[in-house]
């Protein structure tokens, strides 16, 4: 089966007072349908920029992005907005709308595609059940904990039955326990709904726990990629090695019990 999500030679630079900062230097990715694909690396490696180029929240300077048969980078504004409705995204800072209840937050993407009221109600209830927040239906995000907020974020991202879910450091602002439960939820979503997930993270454990494949991003280039077990068993890149080193260092800290494999 050919890759479902592909990027070809993606370049992106930011300019800060005329100082050019190359964030992505020719990224080639290919991600199969139904995968949970991890992109790991240190802060500033370009992970977020990369994932944001996939739904063009950031416009790449050059290069192409495909999802399925659609070349995302070739879409005009209107087509892009249309396609984005089927690409879910979860953020580190949750980015829930404080002015809306949990119900309204999840219903918002459905309203965008003019779903009838009854269907919205049923769909939101289903999603709330999936993320285990049925009792918080009419609560405001301000009253929820971080983990609960991210559950709402995931439910909202799934509202329009996306085929792709982009997760930009979804667990990085959460405590270890919530992190685990969110990771499990992402895995469940991937298994039950068949959503392809691209997961950005700087937490090795998170990638190790649920990603089937990972790519290591270092200074804007992918230094290695492949099956998660292979990469973590025998990292070739310096980032991979440091990651593993740090991981072993903290191994005795049993916050994460998912371990195994190494």
């Amino acid at each position, binding site marked *: 089966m050919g890759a479902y999500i592909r990027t070809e030679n993606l370049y992106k630079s930011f300019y800060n007072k005329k100082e050019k900062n190359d964030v992505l230097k020719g990224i080639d990715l290919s991600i199969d349908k139904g995968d949970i694909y991890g992109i790991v690396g240190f802060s500033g490696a370009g992970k977020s920029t990369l994932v944001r180029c996939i*739904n063009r*929240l950031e416009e790449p300077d050059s290069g192409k992005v495909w999802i399925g048969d659609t070349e995302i980078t070739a879409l005009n504004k209107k087509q892009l907005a249309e396609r984005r409705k089927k690409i879910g995204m979860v*953020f580190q800072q949750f980015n829930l*709308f404080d002015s809306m209840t949990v119900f309204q937050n999840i219903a918002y993407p459905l*309203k965008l595609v003019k779903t009838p009221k009854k269907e919205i109600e049923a769909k939101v209830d289903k999603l709330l059940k999936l993320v285990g927040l049925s009792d918080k239906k009419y609560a405001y995000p301000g009253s929820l904990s971080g983990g609960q907020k991210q559950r709402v974020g995931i439910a*909202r991202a799934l509202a329009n039955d996306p085929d792709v879910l982009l997760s930009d450091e979804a667990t990085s602002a959460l405590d270890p326990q919530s992190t685990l439960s969110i990771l499990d939820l992402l895995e469940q979503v991937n298994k039950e709904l068949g959503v392809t997930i691209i997961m950005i993270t700087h937490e090795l454990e998170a990638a190790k726990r649920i990603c089937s494949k990972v790519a290591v991003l270092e200074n804007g280039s992918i230094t290695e990629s492949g099956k998660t077990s292979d990469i973590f068993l025998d990292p070739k890149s310096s980032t991979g090695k440091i990651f593993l080193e740090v991981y072993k260092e903290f191994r005795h800290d049993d916050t994460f019990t998912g371990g195994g494999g190494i």
Partner: protein
Amino acid sequence: MSFLKYPFWEVVKHAFSKEVWDTVFPAVWDTLYMVALSAVITLVLGILLGIGLSVISKDGVRPVPVLNETAGTIVNCLRSLPSMIMIIVTLPLARALLGQSYGSNACIIALAASCIPMYARLVQGAFVEIPKGKIEAAKAMGSSSAAIVFHIMLPEAIPSIIRGFTVALIGIISMTALAGNFGAGGIGDIAVRFGFNRFYHDMLIASVLVLIVMVQVAQLAGDLISNLILRKRHLI
């Protein structure tokens, strides 16, 4: 009654007499009329202008650099004029539109011209404070620009917009008092004509009291509404 002729407490006591309030009370209504009308105009047009300015600004949902610069300059020019000068400048406009350059209605034009740009900037500020990520989340879901403005930005910023309106409203009240000097009538007119020109210090005290009460009510109401919304959203 003047401080020059009567003992302090006599004057203060007289400030609450029927005699004084028979003159002051109608002026209060004039002031309320001007403030209310200007406030409504400022609220509606200020929010619209504020939305427009944020939408076309550099980081807005639909940046239009040239228009942004132009509109920004015009707004800044209007804001450069002190209230008093704005009143003088808009007198001919009032005469052209209403046929007379004095009275409550004429003053409302000056009030609006002065307060709309000011409030628009406050509204713009309220929008800027919305975390960028929320707008991005809406964009990532495929929202149209209109949906982002009306379904996300406006509701998210409404507590700040209300707080800003409190500031604008107090500005309107103080400017209304000033306009009294230019034939608009109202409480400012009383304070100047009686309190200043004729040394009726009891009337001056009454006018000051009225203004203090008005501003307090505006501030308390603004804080109350904005806090109610924030509390409902569990943000305070």
